[in-house]
């Protein structure tokens, strides 16, 4: 049995192709069962995320893995294999194992070291298991992958730090205010960048939202889903003192917020600190604002510099992660070899047992003058003989399973004993 993976990800395929190949979650169990209808595919699991679609399978020896799996994958979504094939990649055996371990650890992700994919791998495994399409090989593969990812995240700093502008902004907010649950966020401008940063703030616990925009209707669109309040830009100064966190992202060519406005807001809020996130280009907030005691100003460059630093540190952790993955791949392969050896040993035992039984059936009817006690002794002797003959080959097989021996060794043993 061989393990193989075929798939596409954000590096090999455009978002359009990824969208075409993405399988809705409710269709996954049926898709998995369809894959396993093929007699050459014993086990299968599908990993579908926004950045990748991968089919993991345990296939019979000698099968053309790429040919078989790529066709199966394209057929699931009724796509022409010719349009998918150039973007597909294939990994088999140890490479396939290492690939899944890297994916689960976030080493193959768009944001290096992200942990979300670990949950997605766990979910893919649970889906396949509940669909009944995993067996001994894929069960072991996914369990080892989850274990490897856990080790990578705990033993290295690959997932440490904040790797998105929104999460960095939230971290700074938490360092100023502690809990954000009682805090108010004022969003100036209703663009996508402001909306994304607001989402991060809401996830971190911000409950009250005010959106200020040139057109109040657009502000309402952003504010309403969060139970927020919409105001026009002309009302900004009157509401500024209510905001603990100001997220500014307008396309205005001049500064929207000046030091005097913020000084006035600080006075009105009894000098409670204000965190100002200026993610607009050109900037919305006069940099002189940062000189005020109680105002913490971060522009897009500041936030991106933190993200870049985090990613640089994570890059430095990659060799340590790869070393862990290598250890885990070896451990997994040893386990798989022990399955092969176990199967071979059972087959060998069965084969010799059949010979023993056949020989006893030939001999015993001929021994008419032999007592019942002697018959038993003959049977015992035959059993001891076969056990002693097999003892040494079985020991050697177990030893080879534990070591990283050449796979052809097991084939030679099979041929030798005609198994």
């Amino acid at each position, binding site marked *: 049995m061989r393990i193989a993976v075929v798939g596409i990800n954000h590096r090999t395929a455009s978002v359009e192709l990824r969208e075409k190949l993405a399988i809705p979650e409710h269709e996954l169990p049926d898709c998995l069962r369809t894959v396993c209808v093929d007699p050459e595919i014993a086990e299968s699991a599908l990993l579908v995320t926004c950045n990748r679609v991968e089919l993991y399978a345990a296939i019979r020896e000698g099968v053309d893995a790429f040919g078989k799996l790529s066709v199966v994958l394209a057929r699931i979504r009724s796509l022409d294999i010719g349009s998918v094939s150039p973007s597909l990649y294939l990994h088999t055996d140890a490479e396939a194992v290492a690939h899944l371990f890297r994916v689960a650890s976030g080493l193959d992700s768009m944001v290096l070291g992200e942990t979300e994919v670990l949950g997605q791998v766990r979910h893919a495994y649970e889906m396949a298991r509940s669909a009944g399409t995993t067996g001994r090989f894929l069960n072991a593969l996914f369990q080892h992958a989850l274990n490897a990812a856990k080790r990578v995240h705990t033993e290295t700093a690959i997932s440490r*730090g*904040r790797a998105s502008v929104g999460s*960095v902004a939230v*971290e*700074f907010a*938490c*360092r*100023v*205010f*502690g809990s954000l649950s009682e805090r108010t966020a004022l969003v100036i401008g209703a663009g996508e960048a402001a909306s994304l940063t607001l989402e991060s703030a809401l996830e971190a616990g911000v409950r009250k939202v005010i959106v200020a925009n040139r057109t109040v209707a657009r502000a309402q669109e952003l504010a309403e889903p969060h139970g927020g309040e919409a105001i026009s830009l002309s009302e900004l100064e009157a509401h500024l003192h209510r905001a603990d966190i100001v997220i500014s992202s307008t396309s205005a060519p001049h500064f929207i917020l000046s030091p005097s406005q913020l000084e006035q807001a600080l*006075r009105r809020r*009894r*000098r*409670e*600190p204000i965190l100002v996130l200026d993610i607009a280009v050109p900037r919305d907030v006069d940099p002189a604002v*940062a000189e005020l*005691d*109680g105002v*913490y100003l*971060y522009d897009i460059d*500041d936030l991106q*510099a*933190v993200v870049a*630093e*985090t990613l640089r540190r994570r890059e430095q952790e990659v060799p340590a992660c790869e070393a862990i993955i290598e250890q885990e791949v070896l451990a997994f392969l040893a386990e798989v070899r022990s399955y092969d050896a176990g199967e071979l040993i059972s087959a060998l035992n069965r084969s010799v047992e059949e010979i023993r039984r056949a020989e006893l059936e030939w001999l015993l009817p001929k021994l008419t003058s032999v007592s019942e006690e002697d018959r038993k002794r003959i049977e015992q002797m035959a059993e001891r003989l076969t056990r002693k003959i097999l003892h040494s080959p079985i020991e050697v097989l177990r030893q080879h399973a534990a070591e990283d021996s050449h796979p052809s060794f097991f084939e030679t043993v099979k041929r030798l004993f005609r198994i």
Partner: protein
Amino acid sequence: MIRVPLILAACSYGVGTVSGLYYLLGRAERRSFAPTAGLVGAIFQFTFLVWLGVALRDFPSADRVGALELFALSLAVIYVALEQRMKFKALGAFALPVILALTLAGLFLESRAPVPATEHELLVIVHAVCALAGCGGFAFAALAAVAYLVQDRQLRLKLLTRLLERMASLDELDRLIRRATALGFLAFTISLIAGSILAASLSRPIFGNWVVAWSILVWVLYAVVLHLRLNASLRGRRVAYLTIGGFTLAAALFVCLLFVQDNLHKLAGG
């Protein structure tokens, strides 16, 4: 022999200081042993003070070493309690070095012969304990103020450093400064009132005494700080600087009382 528990307390605080600083500044993700070391140190220090009290047959603050160690113990107890309540796990890096320094100072300071007990002994104890508790509150407010300034600086550097992550938020530190100052002020006020009643009952003049003048100066400074905080919205770095300044004055008064005996404090053995 009596100082053995004090040596053990100093060792515990030393271990706590190293662990706390390593937790705050070290690269590795390690658990801080500072709270445990602080608790163990406090137990040894308490043992020493009980021992000293038995030896003196008086409240330990009657002796200047006792007063110093009582002050260190009050800081250690506040630290352990705060560490349990707050998310500020790096507090040990700020508090334990100060507690260690006070404990070590007590080890090297000579004891003075205690003054015989007066008929107003309870008032003396209230005066001494409240003065020490007041200084403890001011000390913690000052430690939080130092942490506030460090955190403020980190935030202005605009880097998500390990130091920034391990410190409490500015809001939590600000609350700690406010509460510690308020509690310290309350205790210090009670101490001043108790001291004045004591002086009056012993017919000692309090006007013109430098310790009294200094104490009133400290009290007025903290009264102004609290008033500004409550009514004039004084916050942030300015409060931090004022708090540190106030504690410097209070600490200088405490140190002077340990070495110089004025007419009033001879009766308290200080």
